[in-house]
């Protein structure tokens, strides 16, 4: 019996049509725009000014506050401007505009392909490298990795989970790196294992990726034969069910521990990192290479050229799309991320971020919402909710502004996975409403607990 999480979930069509496309390196564009807000937490502060010459891998943004991250130049060239530019939602964010010259790497970066398998003894060295190279979680939330790897002293992790579920339809970037760079990922996992001081690392991969499972197992076998640093790392095959890659769901699936409401994974002794993050950790620690490029899937049935591309951070989306032949005529919506949780792109001129995992094109027929009709109380939303909530009830409460009842019915536990809206036969925009209510309720909870401190 393959493992999976215990409550709810849906089975959207897989549509991994770009799975067979090997990762291709995208040529560097003429100009890149590097956002200072590429991670969760405080945006970085730009430390370069117009006219400055920068090298590939040079720091151009410094963290502000505890939860923040370094930002590096992904290219060599001249800073043209530092100022507001619209991100993919059309919201002005500080970007550094760099005119690109031929690549010249900053000092101390190992640009060779040699696999470095030796794990440094000092955890602090590893964390410092992760921090100084600007590694953030690439599973979607872009939480600074160094912060996540340093839990508060009163909490101890006993398991590291690598998230290779990639449960979202269409996305294949994690799948491709698991096939093409399995050893690097496992070295990254061993590095994080050393930092956390855990004995057990589990790579969770869904059953629909047998090739990735085989490659990862192979990599573990070959590495652990050479060094004891790789003991205790294993691959677990998971059943295919969305949202398997949700942090709480993945922990439940693998360890059968459930993170409490408003709690963190560390509360049940688990730390979850995406496989792409693990690869970035490998690059950062073993190669001292900052996070300046990532793998992006460009796909969609209406898109003629399915691709997995290695893209420099800050490349305009329009450049990537034009490189592949332009926006297809039939596309109605462009999405950054998967179709279940990704963000709709309002501005195709926006530049890629560290956490950008895909550009997905959907047609009108695939994505246009149908008009809302009466709730028929079928309970399919409650059946689908992986958090065991009752979206139909939350919807009613939210529309009537009943905040206390919303809190009692755990609206704050919502992970915004979209299963409710996906499965609603009456096309009620459940998640749209619940998301807003969740924000309001969390604000109320915070304001209630804050004065006591």
């Amino acid at each position: 019996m393959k493992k999976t999480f215990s409550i709810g979930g849906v089975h959207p069509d897989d549509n991994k049509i770009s799975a067979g496309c090997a990762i291709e390196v995208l040529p560097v564009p003429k100009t890149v725009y590097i956002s200072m807000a590429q991670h969760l937490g405080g945006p970085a502060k730009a430390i370069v000014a117009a006219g400055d010459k920068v090298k590939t891998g040079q720091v151009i943004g410094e963290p502000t506050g505890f939860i923040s991250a370094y930002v590096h130049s992904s290219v060599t060239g001249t800073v043209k401007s530092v100022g507001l530019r619209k991100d993919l939602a059309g919201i002005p964010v500080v970007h550094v505009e760099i005119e690109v010259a031929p690549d010249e790497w900053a000092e101390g970066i190992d640009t060779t392909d040699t696999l470095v398998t030796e794990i440094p003894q000092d955890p602090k060295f590893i964390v410092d490298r992760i921090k100084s190279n600007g590694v953030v979680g690439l599973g979607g939330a872009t939480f600074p990795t160094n912060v996540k790897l340093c839990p508060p002293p009163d909490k101890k992790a006993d398991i590291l989970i690598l998230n290779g579920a990639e449960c979202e339809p269409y996305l294949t970037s994690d799948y491709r790196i698991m096939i093409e760079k399995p050893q690097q990922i496992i070295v990254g996992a061993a590095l994080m294992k050393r930092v956390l001081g855990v004995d057990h690392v589990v790579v969770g991969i869904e059953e629909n990726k047998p090739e990735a499972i085989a490659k990862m197992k192979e990599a573990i076998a070959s590495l652990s034969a050479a060094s004891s640093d790789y003991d205790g790392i294993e691959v677990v095959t998971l059943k295919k069910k969305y949202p398997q890659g949700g942090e709480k769901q993945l922990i439940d699936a693998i360890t059968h521990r459930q993170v409490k409401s408003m709690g963190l994974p560390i509360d049940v002794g688990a730390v979850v990192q995406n496989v792409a993050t693990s690869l970035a950790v490998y690059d950062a620690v073993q190669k001292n290479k900052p996070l300046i490029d990532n793998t992006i899937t460009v796909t969609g049935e209406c898109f003629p050229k399915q691709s997995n591309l290695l893209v420099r951070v800050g490349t305009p989306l329009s450049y990537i799309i034009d490189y592949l032949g332009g926006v297809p005529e039939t596309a109605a919506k462009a999405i950054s991320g998967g179709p279940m949780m990704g963000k709709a792109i309002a501005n195709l001129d926006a530049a890629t971020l560290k956490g950008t995992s895909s550009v997905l094109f959907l047609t009108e027929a695939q994505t246009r919402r149908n008009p809302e009709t009466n709730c028929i109380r079928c309970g399919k939303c409650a059946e689908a909710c992986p958090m065991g909530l009752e979206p139909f009830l939350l919807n009613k409460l939210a529309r009537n502004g009943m905040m206390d009842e919303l809190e009692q019915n755990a609206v704050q536990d919502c992970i915004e996975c979209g299963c409710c809206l996906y499965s609603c036969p009456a096309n009620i925009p459940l998640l749209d409403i619940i998301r807003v209510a969740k924000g309001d309720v969390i604000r109320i909870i915070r304001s209630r607990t804050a004065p006591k401190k």
Partner: protein
Amino acid sequence: MNKLLVSPSPHIHSKTSTRSLMLDVVIALLPSVLVTILFYGWSAVVILASSVVFCVLLEYLITKYLLKKPGTIGDMSAVVTGIILALNLPPTAPWWVAMIGAIVAIGVAKMTFGGLGQNVFNPAITGRVFLLISFPAIMTTWGGAKGFIGGADAVSGATPLGIVKEGLMQGQTLQQIFDLHDFSYAQMLFVNMGGSAGEISAIAIIIGFIYLLARKVIRPYITLSILVTVAVFSGIFWLIDPAQYTDPLFNLLTGGVLLGSVFMATDYVTSPMSDKGGIIFGIGIGIITMLIRYFGSYPEGMSFAILIMNSTVPLINKFCKQKKFGRA
């Protein structure tokens, strides 16, 4: 492509819609409809057609002229109500009985509450119960219909349950009644002559049930809990006194137990949301049905039981919540 669409996630939707769900229910009802038409002939066609037509027409008129809202007949729910109502009527009933049933079902039980999803009581059953109380003679006279197959056998006086009730009231024992009327379980399973249109073939209903389960339209809990409760309840009484109380199999196969538990108690709108709630709901229906059958003055209690339990659904929903993630 000129303007990009922008909307909150998720960006895709399952293919399930209210319409597709209702269409599945209609498909699941088809075996019963076919059997009914085969055995009751033209009169069944008339009653089915008039019931469906009046239900749809009424919903259309009410949404258009009374509520002045966009039409909702496209969601097929009125068709489902119409078919279920017709299957609850004696096939020999005149067409205007179906019309009155439709008025009560759609006009009173459904639209006055605000249409699909808002009603407290199952529309088809409300219509049927209204007719049963208003026109008892018509509603309990079976027979006189000429089927496409089956011939003269189709003429029969009352349902097995009615015959048993009558007999028991006259002081006969079950043994005597069964000897007199020669009921066979095989006949009940396939073509149980005498009964509402939809009651005549258990196997047709079971086929529909399996289809609904396979298409994941309904979950089995409500149906199974009703059937198990009826079986257990009647089993206990039958073991105590087989002369006075009918046996479990007889109770499962006769009357509206199967039709009700598969198609009427499982109506989304008027049944509890959670599985746990569904089981409580089903047990309630089973017990009330058997209480009416054994001790009430009506021979059949399924529709009353469903209506009574419909009224408890909000309460059940309030207390039966599914387990939340990460909460004790």
